[in-house]
C-alpha cells in the first residue's frame, strides 16, 4: 500500500460541521460583510474608499486542521478548509451576494426544461498552475473523482451513474459537457433537481489539476501539495501548524478596474484550535484575521473597537441534541424525547454556556434558511409536564437513562452539566461522556454502541434540499455501516417532503415543504434544537476587501460563508496603509 496514494482520510479535528458543510451545504452562512459591530467603531471602512494596494502578506488563523490530503475527493472540509482550498482551487461556481449561483470556472450552467440535465460550459483561457488547461475534460475528471468520495457520494446519490460508477456526462466540445440526474444513480429515472447547481459551489465543485490527481494516484506527487488554478499557489504545509500560499502571477481574474487579482503576495494560514488563544493572537497583533464561532470570544471582540467585525449570522448551523433513533431504548419513544426537550430552558442554557450571545432555536432551520420558523411546535419549557411524561414511561418500561456524549471543550462540558441537571429534575439519569471531536463524528457515522444522544452542530445552508442526505430515510444505514443520516432518522413524512422539495422549482412552494419538514421535526421531537450558531470574522482595521471578491460575470460578489460559515474569499483581500 502506498502511503501517499492510498492514505485513508482521517477523522481529524473537524467539527461536526465539517463533513456537513463540505458535502451538502451549498449556499449558506451569509456574511453581512463589514457590518457594524457592537459599536460604530467596529464598522469596516467601505472598500470603495480605499484603493486596493497590491502586495503584502496576510496571516489568517482558523479553528481546526482537517489535515487534508487536499485532493477534492478526500478532504473533509470544514469552513477553514474551504477558506484555504479556495485560495488554490477555483470552484465551478459560487454563491453571490444575491444568493444566486454564479459560474466561476463555468462560463454558464444551464438546465434543460425539467432540470434533469445540466449543460456546463467551461470558461476558456484558464490553466492550472502546472500548465495543463482547464477544460471540459478536466472538470469532468474532477466531478467523477470527487463525487466518488466516501463522504460526497451520498450527497450526489441522485446524479446518474454508469455501470462503472462514473457519472453520466457527455462531452459536447472541448469546453462543454452535460451532466444528468438519476434517482439513486439510475440514468433511466431522471430526477428534476432545480437547485443542483448550488452543489457545484461546494466541495463537489472544487477543481484540481487532473495531471496532479493522476500523479497523486500513481504516487509520484504528494497529496498535500495541491495544484489548482486558484489565485494562490501552494508553497508549504505543516499539518496542524500552518500553510503558506503565494500569489499566482498568472491568475485569470481582474477586478473591476482591471487590476489583476489577487492583491496579496502571500497568505500564511495558521491553525489555532483554542478560540481564546486565537482571540489573543489577534489582540496581540500576531495575526491579521480570525474566524470564530465561539460566542465567548465573539462577545469581547465585538466590544473592542480596535477590530473590524464581519458578522456571519444567517444560514448557519443549529446546535441541537442529536439522537440515535436506531438504538433500542427509551429515546425511541416520542414522549421521552419530547420530555427531554421540555426539561431544558434554552435561554438559561445559552446564558450559562454562550455568554447570552446566541439565539434560542425554535426549529431545525436557522434564520434565513428555507423553512425557518420562529417556533416549529417542538417542546416548550415545562418541567412538570416533562416529569409526568417520564413517570408514565417509567411505570410501563422501567428507568430512563441517557448517555450524552460531547466533545472535550469546556463549553460543551458546561452544556452537558446543564442538561444533566435539567434532565435529573424530571427523573432522567444522565451519563456524560466527553470524547475527541473526530471520534464523536466517527461514532455517529458508524452508529457505535455508545452513540445515544450527542451534542451536535450542523445543517448550515440556504435550501432544505441541502439537508436531504442528512435527513432522508434512504441514508439511514444500519450500524456499523456509515450513515451521514447520523440519527438514522426514517420518517416517511419527511422523506416525501424532501423528495418534493428537491424537484420543486417554485421557491414559495418549496418553502412550504421546508416549513412542514421543520414542523414534523417539532412534532416528533426527532432532534432537540437549542440555539443557532453565530459566526464572526474579526480583522485588523487595515485588512480590507472582505466580501468584495467579484464574480467573474461582474454582476455580483462572491458571498463569504456561503455554505461554510467562517469562510471568506481571499482574492480581494489587501492591507491598506
Amino acid at each position: 500500500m502506498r502511503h501517499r496514494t492510498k492514505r485513508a482520510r482521517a477523522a481529524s479535528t473537524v467539527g461536526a460541521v465539517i463533513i456537513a458543510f463540505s458535502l451538502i451545504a451549498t449556499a449558506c452562512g451569509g456574511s453581512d460583510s463589514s457590518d457594524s459591530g457592537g459599536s460604530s467603531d467596529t464598522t469596516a471602512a467601505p472598500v470603495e474608499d480605499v484603493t486596493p494596494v497590491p502586495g503584502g502578506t496576510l496571516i489568517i488563523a482558523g479553528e481546526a486542521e482537517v489535515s487534508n490530503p487536499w485532493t477534492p475527493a478526500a478532504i473533509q472540509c470544514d469552513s477553514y478548509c474551504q477558506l484555504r482550498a479556495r485560495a488554490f482551487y477555483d470552484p465551478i461556481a459560487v454563491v453571490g451576494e444575491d444568493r444566486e449561483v454564479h459560474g466561476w470556472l463555468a462560463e454558464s450552467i444551464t438546465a434543460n426544461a425539467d432540470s434533469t440535465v445540466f449543460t456546463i460550459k467551461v470558461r476558456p483561457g484558464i490553466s492550472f498552475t502546472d500548465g495543463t488547461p482547464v477544460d471540459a475534460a478536466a472538470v469532468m475528471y474532477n466531478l467523477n473523482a470527487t463525487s466518488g468520495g466516501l463522504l460526497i457520494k451520498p450527497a450526489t446519490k441522485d446524479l446518474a451513474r454508469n455501470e462503472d460508477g462514473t457519472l453520466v456526462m457527455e462531452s459536447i466540445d472541448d469546453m462543454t459537457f452535460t451532466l444528468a440526474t438519476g434517482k439513486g444513480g439510475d440514468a433511466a429515472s431522471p430526477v428534476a433537481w432545480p437547485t443542483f447547481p448550488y452543489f457545484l459551489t461546494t466541495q463537489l465543485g472544487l477543481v484540481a489539476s487532473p495531471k496532479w490527481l493522476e500523479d497523486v494516484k500513481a504516487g509520484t506527487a504528494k497529496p498535500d501539495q495541491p495544484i489548482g488554478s486558484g489565485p494562490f499557489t501552494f508553497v508549504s504545509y505543516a499539518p496542524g501548524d500552518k500553510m503558506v500560499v503565494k500569489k499566482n502571477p498568472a491568475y485569470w481574474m481582474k477586478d473591476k478596474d482591471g487590476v489583476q487579482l489577487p492583491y496579496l503576495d502571500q497568505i500564511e494560514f495558521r491553525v489555532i484550535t483554542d478560540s481564546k488563544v486565537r482571540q489573543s493572537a489577534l489582540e496581540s497583533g500576531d495575526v491579521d484575521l480570525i474566524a470564530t464561532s465561539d460566542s465567548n470570544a465573539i462577545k469581547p471582540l465585538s466590544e473592542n473597537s480596535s477590530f473590524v467585525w464581519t458578522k456571519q449570522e444567517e444560514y448557519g448551523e443549529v446546535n441541537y441534541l442529536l439522537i440515535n433513533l436506531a438504538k433500542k431504548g427509551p429515546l425511541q419513544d416520542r414522549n421521552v424525547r419530547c420530555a427531554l426537550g421540555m426539561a431544558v430552558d434554552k435561554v438559561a442554557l445559552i446564558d450559562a454556556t454562550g455568554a447570552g450571545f446566541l439565539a434560542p432555536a425554535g426549529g431545525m432551520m436557522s434564520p434565513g434558511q428555507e423553512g425557518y420558523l420562529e417556533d416549529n411546535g417542538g417542546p416548550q419549557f415545562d418541567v412538570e409536564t416533562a416529569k409526568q411524561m417520564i413517570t408514565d414511561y417509567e411505570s410501563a418500561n422501567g428507568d430512563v437513562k441517557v448517555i450524552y456524549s460531547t466533545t472535550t471543550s469546556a463549553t460543551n462540558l458546561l452544556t452537558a452539566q446543564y442538561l444533566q441537571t435539567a434532565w435529573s429534575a424530571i427523573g432522567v439519569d444522565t451519563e456524560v461522556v466527553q470524547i475527541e471531536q473526530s471520534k464523536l463524528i466517527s461514532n455517529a457515522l458508524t452508529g457505535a454502541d455508545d452513540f445515544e444522544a450527542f451534542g451536535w452542530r450542523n445543517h448550515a445552508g440556504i435550501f432544505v434540499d441541502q439537508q436531504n442526505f442528512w435527513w432522508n430515510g434512504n441514508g439511514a444505514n444500519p450500524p456499523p455501516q456509515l450513515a451521514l443520516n447520523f440519527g438514522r432518522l426514517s420518517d416517511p413524512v419527511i422523506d416525501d417532503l424532501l423528495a418534493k422539495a428537491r424537484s420543486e422549482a417554485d421557491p414559495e412552494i418549496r418553502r412550504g415543504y421546508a416549513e412542514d419538514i421543520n414542523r414534523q421535526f417539532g412534532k416528533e421531537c426527532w432532534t432537540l434544537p437549542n440555539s443557532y450558531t453565530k459566526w464572526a470574522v474579526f480583522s485588523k482595521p487595515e485588512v480590507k476587501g472582505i466580501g468584495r471578491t467579484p464574480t467573474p460575470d461582474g454582476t455580483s460578489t462572491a458571498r463569504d460563508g456561503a455554505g461554510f460559515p467562517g469562510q471568506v474569499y481571499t482574492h480581494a483581500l489587501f492591507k491598506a496603509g
Partner: protein
Amino acid sequence: MRYALQRLGQFILVFLVVTFLVMVITRIGSKDPARDLAGGLVAQEQVDEVRELYRLDEPFVVQYGNWIKNLVTLDFGYSYAQNQSVNDMMKQRLLPSFFIGIWAIFIGLLLAVPTAIYSAYRRDGAFDKTMSTTSFAFLSMPPIVIAVLLSFFIGVKLRWFPVDSNYVALWDNPWQHFRNFILPSFTLGLGLSAVWTRLLRADLINTLQSDFIMLARAKGMSPRRILWVHALRASALSLITSIAIQMGGLIGGAVVAEQFFAMPGIGDRLVFAIQQNDLLVVQAITALLAIVVVAVNLLVDLFYAVIDPRIRHARAIK
C-alpha cells in the same frame, strides 16, 4: 565501565517494557485498531489494507517485533489521520519541543541558582523570606495559569512577544527564535525555577555547615568562591537529579505551553494522537520520550561521579 554497561542494560530493558506496554494499551483501548490507524472515516477496503500492512491480526508480540524492526531502520510508520509519515511529523515537531525544553531548563537554572545561593548565604534574611514566598507561589501555580498571565500581560497588553508562536530555528534568525520561544519557555521555566530554588537552597544550607567549607573560610577563601565553586558543586547532586526527573514532566508541561502558544511541538501532537487513537504516532512519541528520559537519567548517573569525587571513590572501592 561495568557500571556503565549495567546501566545501559537497564536502559534497554526499560525501553522495551515501556514501548511494549504502550503498544498493548493502545491496541486494547481501540475497538478496531485498523480503522483507527486508517483514520476513522474511510472505506472498509482501506481499513483492510492497513490491517494487512501493519499485520494487526497477528499477536501483540509479533506486531511489536515488526514495530521494533521498523524502528531500527528509523521507519516509524505513517499517520493516516494526518496524512503524513511519522518521520516527517517528528522532523517538523521535534525541534520546537526540544527548544522549549532546553530554554525552560535554562531559564529555570538562570533564576534558581543565584536565588538559591543568595538565599542560603543570607538564610532567613529578607531576601530569603521573599524568595521563599515567591517560589511557593510559583510552585502552586500550574503552567496553564502562568501561560494565561504571560499571554495577557506580556503578549496582549505589552505586545512584547507573540502569543501565536512560530517555530524559527535558532540558526536561521536568533532574534526571532528568542521572541517566539520566550513565552512558552518561561511558562515552564518559572515553575522549574521554583522547585530548583527550594531544592538547591536546602542543600546549600547543609553544605555551608560542612567541615570543608569551614576550612575554606578559615583559609581565607572569598565567600564568592566558596559559594559558587565549592558549595555549589557539592550541593548540585539533588539539582541534577531533579533536572533529569523533570525531563519527563517537561513533556507534560510542554503540552500546555505548545497548545496555549500555538507552538507546533511534539507534546501537542501526542495529545492529539491519543485523542484520535493515532496508534503509530502515540507509539513513536512515547518511544522517543522513553529514550530521552532513560538516556538523560543514565547520563546523570554517570555524571554524578564526575562532579562528586566521593561517589567516584565509592564506586572504585566497590
